[in-house]
């Protein structure tokens, strides 16, 4: 497959303005210290979320203007996700703005879009998507644990779904469910009768996952029953790149933490950053970060422009950034020595996030195999 040589590439100056503003905000209002508090049980801070939406405008970035958004694409959202990833931000950006909005846009149900997207764009509605299979894997055509039946002109859902991100704070749930015509996308508000949501204990405590139980819960169908796998496929490519951008941010922050520590920590009378072994670990981390950045730039642009290699680029990005983030988090830990694997050290939070994100939306080996298929192999 040719790799497109045409697309302009440089992050626009506006991206850098957004990045700076966001970094300033996160450092003061939603740094990794807050992520740690959130991990240890602090509730979701809706005020910060609304400031992200209002002051920074990041929730509407990828939503078309006709639905109250700014009408940009993944290229711009990638900047946001990278910054959120740097601080392990625990809010529902991935759940609501990436998964939720992408699913609604892909499903193409105008009424549902008009009803929900403006709220998502404004940050007032938090959405999430329940689409993992019973084993927690998000895969097109995989087994689903929810069944939708038509009843009295509407639909009723039964079953359960695991690995639903941020479901406890969501105002609206999108659920992929089996119908007689194939899988379809369904919408129901939080608090619906028959719907229950329970947080799961996660390796990575900075991102919350839930189990959603449905017992005769009424829902509306968004789009066409039977079209769910197509919707999920479109969502998953975007989710892969979005998560890749978030992983890039985490990897970059791990490199910074490692370099900062290597400059100040002395052993044998020298800063450990003077030892070539530490230098070379850091240099390889830098390469992992910058190659991940290249992958994210490539894939987000390719998806926005719907080029022929968009799918391959998405698979590449999820596989590559997953490996890069774990490498950087692990090496940052190694460079920190004993301190690195203590509960108090932030590096361990990144390390757990890295291993966990690696398996969200499909692991690296899965994505490489998909990439091979997309290359015609």
């Amino acid at each position, binding site marked *: 497959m040719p790799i497109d040589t045409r697309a302009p590439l440089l992050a626009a100056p506006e991206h850098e303005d957004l990045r700076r503003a966001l970094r300033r905000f996160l450092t003061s209002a939603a740094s990794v210290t807050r992520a740690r508090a959130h991990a240890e049980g602090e509730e979701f801070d809706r005020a910060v979320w609304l400031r992200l939406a209002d002051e920074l405008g990041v929730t509407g970035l990828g939503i078309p203007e006709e639905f109250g958004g700014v009408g940009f694409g993944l290229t711009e959202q990638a900047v946001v996700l990278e910054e959120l990833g740097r601080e392990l931000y625990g809010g529902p950006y991935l759940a609501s703005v990436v998964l939720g909005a992408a699913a609604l846009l892909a499903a193409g149900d105008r009424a549902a879009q008009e009803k929900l997207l403006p709220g998502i764009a404004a940050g007032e509605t938090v959405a999430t998507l329940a689409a993992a299979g019973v084993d927690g894997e998000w895969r097109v055509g995989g087994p689903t644990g929810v069944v939708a039946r038509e009843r009295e002109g509407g639909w009723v859902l039964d079953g359960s779904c695991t*690995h639903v991100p941020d479901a406890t704070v969501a105002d609206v749930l999108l659920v992929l469910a089996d119908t007689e015509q194939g899988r379809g996308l369904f919408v129901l508000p939080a608090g619906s009768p028959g719907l229950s949501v329970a947080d*799961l204990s996660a390796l990575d405590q900075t991102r919350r996952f839930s189990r959603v139980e449905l017992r005769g819960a009424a829902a509306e169908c968004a789009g066409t029953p039977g079209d769910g796998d197509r919707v999920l496929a479109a969502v998953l490519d975007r989710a892969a790149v979005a998560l890749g951008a978030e992983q890039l941010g985490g990897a970059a922050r791990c490199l910074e933490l490692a370099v900062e520590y290597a400059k100040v920590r002395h*052993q044998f*009378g020298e800063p450990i950053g003077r030892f070539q*072994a530490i230098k070379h670990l850091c240099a390889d981390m830098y390469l992992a970060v910058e190659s991940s950045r290249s992958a994210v730039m490539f894939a987000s642009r390719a998806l926005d422009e719907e080029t022929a290699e968009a799918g391959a680029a998405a698979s590449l990005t999820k596989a590559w950034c997953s490996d890069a983030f774990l490498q950087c988090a692990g090496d940052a830990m190694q460079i920190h020595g*004993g301190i690195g*694997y*203590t509960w108090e050290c932030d590096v361990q939070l990144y390390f757990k996030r890295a291993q966990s994100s*690696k398996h969200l939306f499909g692991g690296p080996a899965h994505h490489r195999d998909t990439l091979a298929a997309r290359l015609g192999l």
Partner: protein
Amino acid sequence: MTDTMQYGDDAAEEFRGSVREWITENAPPELTGVFDWRTREIPGYRVEQIVEAKRHPAHVEWERRCVEGGFVCPLWPVAAGGRGWNRVQKAIFEEELHAAGVPRIDRGMGEFLVGPTIVARGTAEQQARLLPPIISGQHRYCQGFSEPEYGSDLAGLQTRGAVDGDELVVTGQKIWTSGAVDANMIFLLCRTDPAAAKHRGLTFAVAEFGPHNGFDVRPIRQMSGAYDFAEEFISGARTPLSNVIGGLGEGWSVAMTTLGLERDFNLPTLSLDFLHEFGRMADRVRESGRNSDPVVRQTLARAWSHVAIMRMFAKRLLADEEGTADMVSSTKLFWSEYHRWVSTEDLDLDGAAGMLRPAGDGYPTTPIQDSFLAARAATIYAGTSQIQRNIIAERVLGLPR
């Protein structure tokens, strides 16, 4: 006879038969069900889990029989209350215990570090007074060497020891104290002569450990949620001068004796534990049908290869006591890097399911997650992988410092 015993020769096999018989006769049958003793040497178990397992009546009974039978601290000289075994005998004993699925009753740092140091450097009085309570389990030691700014670089440590009458009074701070949770004794290094050069003026002493003796112990929580290490703020801890080993100001030399004993590695047992762990991974792969995935097959073949080679390293170490110093860094590097790799692969096999932990307070994890997290510590403690490579390059290969 035992001094010339070769691993695998007739004398060794005769020995194996005799210890196996003793184990069969004495191990309480229900002990195997209390805990998966076959993997306890692998990083990943929490001290508190093991402490709890040791409270089980079957373990208490087993411990009693081992003490009575003289199977505790068996490497110690007979005069010190041990059996005077060589390493081959200890390895064979542990292999048989592993096969039976029951633990060796060990005394941790008391057995491996403090006891042999006292045997080598202590007076007859100290040996008579300090060794028996280690064997009986009455004294449980932790190690007080590392300080916050001096991890790999001991010669600079700052904890002070002042002589006050016939007592030593210790003030300062220690960190990375493993076993502190369960310890009631500590062996430590302190600076008794601040005017002396860096690695002079240090003193090695044992002391009662705990808040009653000025040790403010603050457990360090690891990323696994476990508290396997602690930090201590020491304010005026006292110990009689008769608890100084090797004499005041001789601490550096005594500590080097102790650190040399860290080479009394447990690779024979560790490699069996890794083999057991491999078996569990292979079983999971077979059960899930993923053994037909060529990528997974490559991974499992690599894993078994490492374990088989590790097992062979252990046999080479046992067969060649003289040349072992050259290989200790290599085997530490080999198993710790292997485990970092394989524990990640193992958790990866769980895919998205591995993102979730068991429910419960206090960050409980699955054994596979425990291993994954703890493996990251093993490439750091007892000399990082970087330091092991330096040692190999300089001491074994002779590259210039």
